[in-house]
């Protein structure tokens, strides 16, 4: 298995809002016209968006889909920045983005099969990975979970990846009734997977990593941290790894789970 893929040469691009709609309770999707960024971004990377000139800091967002010159971002409304983002109107709003930021998910070796495990909004960037794997002809299975069916946000991804997605919900309103770890365990018992890609709330990622450890399968997690610069300078997004302190913004956001000191991850996660 190759290590996570590093990319260089970030740039700043002024992007135009193509659409911006609420797709689930408190979850929105904004589509930005960003011709240069769209052609450089790889699944797992993020963009650092200046939502409003009156904010002091940019906000990092993962990308869930590329459509020619456009990038699609699913976001939960969690604070002042994302509240302001919901107010951006189509075509008359321009924003500055820095990107592509961070590393991307490495693709598995030819002929091997991947398991994609997305919890809540974490399914969004995995949607882009699923599309990349589909285009590359790599076999994979995609499991998504959420608290309830309306919060399983990547249900529509099956169209572009032309395969069924397996679901799990806490309340049983869609797919398996219970935690995502159960269908993950069931899949891994087949022994056909060589790599697992997981993205979602950190507590869910930790639980999935614990399951994967029993099957000795390489597992990549995707971490989220508050960050100021997004380009490796400010050290806000520090994470402890077995190789020493690393930065989520440039060394991540994708990490091989066995490289992380997960106790530290729990302490410093976003609440």
């Amino acid at each position, binding site marked *: 298995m190759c290590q996570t893929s590093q990319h260089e040469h970030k740039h*700043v691009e002024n992007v135009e809002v193509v659409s911006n709609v609420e797709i689930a309770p408190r979850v929105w999707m904004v589509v930005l016209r960003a011709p240069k960024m769209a052609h450089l971004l790889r699944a797992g990377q993020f963009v650092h968006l200046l939502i409003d000139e009156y904010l002091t*800091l940019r906000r990092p967002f993962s990308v869930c889909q590329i459509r020619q010159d456009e990038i699609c971002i699913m976001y939960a409304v969690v604070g002042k920045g994302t509240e302001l983002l919901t107010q951006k109107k189509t075509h008359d709003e321009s924003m500055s983005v*820095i990107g592509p930021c961070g590393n991307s998910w490495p693709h598995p070796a030819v002929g091997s099969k991947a398991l994609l495990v997305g919890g809540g909004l974490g399914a969004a960037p995995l949607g882009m990975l699923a599309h990349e794997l589909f285009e590359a002809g790599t076999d994979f299975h995609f499991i998504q979970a959420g608290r309830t069916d309306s919060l399983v946000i990547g249900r529509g991804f099956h169209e572009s990846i032309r395969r069924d997605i397996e679901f799990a919900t806490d309340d049983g309103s869609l797919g398996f009734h219970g935690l995502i770890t159960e269908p993950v365990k069931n899949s891994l018992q087949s022994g056909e997977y060589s790599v697992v890609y997981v993205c979602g709330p950190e507590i869910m990622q930790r639980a999935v990593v614990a399951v994967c450890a029993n099957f000795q399968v390489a597992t990549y997690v995707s971490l989220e941290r508050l960050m*100021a*610069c997004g380009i490796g*300078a*400010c050290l806000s997004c520090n994470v402890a790894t077995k190789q020493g302190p690393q930065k989520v913004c440039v060394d991540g956001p994708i990490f091989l789970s066995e490289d992380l000191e997960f106790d*530290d991850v729990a*302490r410093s996660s976003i609440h």
Partner: protein
Amino acid sequence: MTLLDPQSINTRISFAGLELCSPLTVASGTFGSGREYADFVDLAQLGALTTKGVSPVAWAGNEGARITEVSSGMLNSIGLQNSGVDHFIHHDLAWLQSHAPEAKVIVNVCGHEIDEFARVIEKLEDHHGVGMYELNISCPNVDNGGMSFGTDPKVAAQVVERVRPLTKKPLIAKLTPNVTDIAEIARSVEAAGADGISLINTVLGMAIDAHRFKPILKRKVGGLSGPAIKPIALRMVHEVSRAVSVPLIGLGGATTGIDVVEFMLAGATMVALGTANFKDPFATDKALIELKEFCALHDIENVSDLVGALKEI
């Protein structure tokens, strides 16, 4: 009257005996060691590049959330995380020497004890590419050292006196605003041999998450930076400029070229952009263009003429 061409403005300044191409620098900790911004900024075009804080050995920095945005600014609690002076020499300084040999470098030096400042400077002294040292006696985010050195005029002077014999390069003392009388601290470090003073470091602040009944930062307090602190910084630069004769680096919320002008009028010879770099990695380039346009508009041929040129109302 014919307006001056902004391109004809002389932006050169001299600071503590060094000739620099512009009065602009960056605030320590906001610009890495320059390498992180090399995709965006020509480092040699900065008057000087101020590095992150460097300690004798690696420091892990603080646990928990390290930043939070507040009105017109941000709080940070990084805790001077760095890989130590040896790593800095072999990675950061070596990179700068091969990729931006023209850049003038100010190395920010920190320590938990007074002797630790000396250990860093002793290791750096023989290496080319270090233009000046900035003594960090003002960081609010570490338990030992940091701000505690800079709040007592005697201790602040002791740090400068300890390292003064170790170098002929300019020594700058970076002061904290979290004191009652910053002019007294400034006079004290000047008397101890500082060649320049930079001010202000961040303002001690706090943010609370009401819904969780908890402070946002694990250490409860952090350093406030950004436009929110600019009026405090301008006041202190003005006050200190009247108390000492060494040149000043003004910083604290400076974002635009007009902000740079304001700090220079208040008495700063150089001005550092800090938090502004996070929002706009081109902030220093833009500020320099705006500074030249301002000078052209006001018929000022030499940017250095702005220093201390504040008039009475």
